């Protein structure tokens, strides 16, 4: 992992205090993988860095895109940063999603600020393995949207919108919301994924792998879905972090491995864990 002074090349502000930051960080862009995050120093006044997952990495342009939501003081300071300013960024950090099986169908489920790693995963899967992305949000999505021309089994008539940049790349995607957003499935995103999975035939469903990132209730629902349909599920977790390099053991989650409990570090042992390893989601 690399520590660098990254220049802000774009900073777009969206509804619901969501922001998309583009940073010039060539070494990070070159090595970043879906599921990994960067640890950002937001100001000299805020002691600890903030972990933010990577939404896209462009090795050629040397940029990484981050989507974050203002949740506290640190992210508020970050939101005020201007194009041209530099931020100290450490990354890429963490064990990425395992996207290595060309024979799998990856079902990517993202909620809120958990959507970015799913976008990154989808983009990297193009031309290698089948995937479909379901994204949920209770505030307007911070992306250009447009009606999808790709049919998806099981998806109801009102869920017509997709993320335009995914549609352009030929990645099937649908959206869910409880806030009555136009063109979205009315309900939670795991329910949308469930309808899709139930509409697949047995053989097709059995090669699905669930990858999820988002709020805890969503991760619980995805873990349940995996158990119910006997599909592997991998969850990307969040926890307060200090070092981000595995040094402090401050960022742990409880795991159960061969019948024994451990606390594993979310930063370097994760952030992605198999759901069946996490007693919290059992």
């Amino acid at each position, binding site marked *: 992992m*690399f*520590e660098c002074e990254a220049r802000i090349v774009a900073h777009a502000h969206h509804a619901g205090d969501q922001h998309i930051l583009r940073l010039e960080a060539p070494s990070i862009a070159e090595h970043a993988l879906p599921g990994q995050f960067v640890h950002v120093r937001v100001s000299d006044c805020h002691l600890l860095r903030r972990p933010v997952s990577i939404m896209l990495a462009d090795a050629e342009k040397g940029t990484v895109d981050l989507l974050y939501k203002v949740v506290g003081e640190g992210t508020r300071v970050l939101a005020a940063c201007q194009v041209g300013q530099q931020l100290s960024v450490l990354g890429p950090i963490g064990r990425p999603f395992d996207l290595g099986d060309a024979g799998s169908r990856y079902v990517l489920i993202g909620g809120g600020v958990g959507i970015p790693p799913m976008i990154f995963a989808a983009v990297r899967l193009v031309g290698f393995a089948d995937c479909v992305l379901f994204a949920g949000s209770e505030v307007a999505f911070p992306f250009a949207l447009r009606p999808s021309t790709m049919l998806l089994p099981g998806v109801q008539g009102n869920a017509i919108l997709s993320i335009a940049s995914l549609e352009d790349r030929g990645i099937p995607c649908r959206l869910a919301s409880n806030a009555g957003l136009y063109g979205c499935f009315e309900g939670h995103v795991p329910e949308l994924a469930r309808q899709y999975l139930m509409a697949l035939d047995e053989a097709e469903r059995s090669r699905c792998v669930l990858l999820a990132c988002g709020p805890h209730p969503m991760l619980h629902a995805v873990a349940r879905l995996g158990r119910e349909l006997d599909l592997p599920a991998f969850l990307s977790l969040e926890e*307060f972090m200090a*070092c981000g*390099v595995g*040094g402090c053991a401050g*960022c742990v989650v409880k795991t159960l491995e061969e019948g024994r409990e451990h*606390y594993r570090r979310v930063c370097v042992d994760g952030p992605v864990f198999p759901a069946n390893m996490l007693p919290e989601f059992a």
Partner: protein
Amino acid sequence: MTVTDIDLSVEFAGLRLQTPIVLLSGCVGFGDEYTRVDGYSHEHVGAVILKGTTLEPRLGNPPHRIYETPAGMLNAIGLQNPGARHVVEHILPRLPHDKTHFWANANGTSPEEYAEVARIFDDSPVTAIEINISCPNVKAGGIHFGNDPEMAARVVEAMRPMTSKPLITKLSPNNADIAETARLVIEAGSDGLSVINTLVGMAVDVDKRIPVIANVSGGLSGPAIKPVALWKLHQCRAIAARHGIPILGQGGICSPRDAIEFAITGADAIGLGTGLFLDPLLCPKVLDGLRTYLERHGLGSYAELVGSLAS
């Protein structure tokens, strides 16, 4: 004199450290975590202190274990470690002992347990053992020993016959009379002091109305504790100097200037912990800053700066 001639190596409890920087226990895992960062080098540090280790493995505390506070952070890790034997058998063999010193950080719930940990580390490549009698985050032992000068001395006495390696006692700032504890642990056989460990604090989640830290209280570290650390170092300096005992000064060091303040106050070596969380490449910056400062003040070595505080 040029910057390159300046001698940053120091002598600490009979050991030659290539630089005065020591990476602090609990902040750098079991020694090699920071090698993940491009540009990090063990050659910038005089010693690396491993995570606090007990006789038996410990799971540690449930999350949340850490929380940012103004100019600092709270932690209550709860001494998560795989036990002294595992550290000696499985972790120490893979560390590059030719690059820097690796020191153990011994913990226990009784003087006997501390002694056993010392015995296990005696037969290992660590070159010193730091005694943590000041951990605020475990139910038994830890800080209870640190706050009781007699008990602190008993822990050192119990460990002393078990090892010929230097013993460095880490003192708690939550201690009524730190100089008195320093005197007692020196007389009990300490070869060095570590000053200070974290202060005890807490934070509240106002939405849930619960303590943020699952352990309720945690240890406060970082710049917030720097003035306390300097004062405690100052209080220990006279007694340590009288016995020729070196001090590893620590608590909130985040810049070359911080390090210089500790050196002037009497830190024979300087500890970096929380400062690494802000900047994982802090070590070379501190070394450069020290060299520049020493040159500007016509000093040829770090050692000449130590304890130079005018009274």
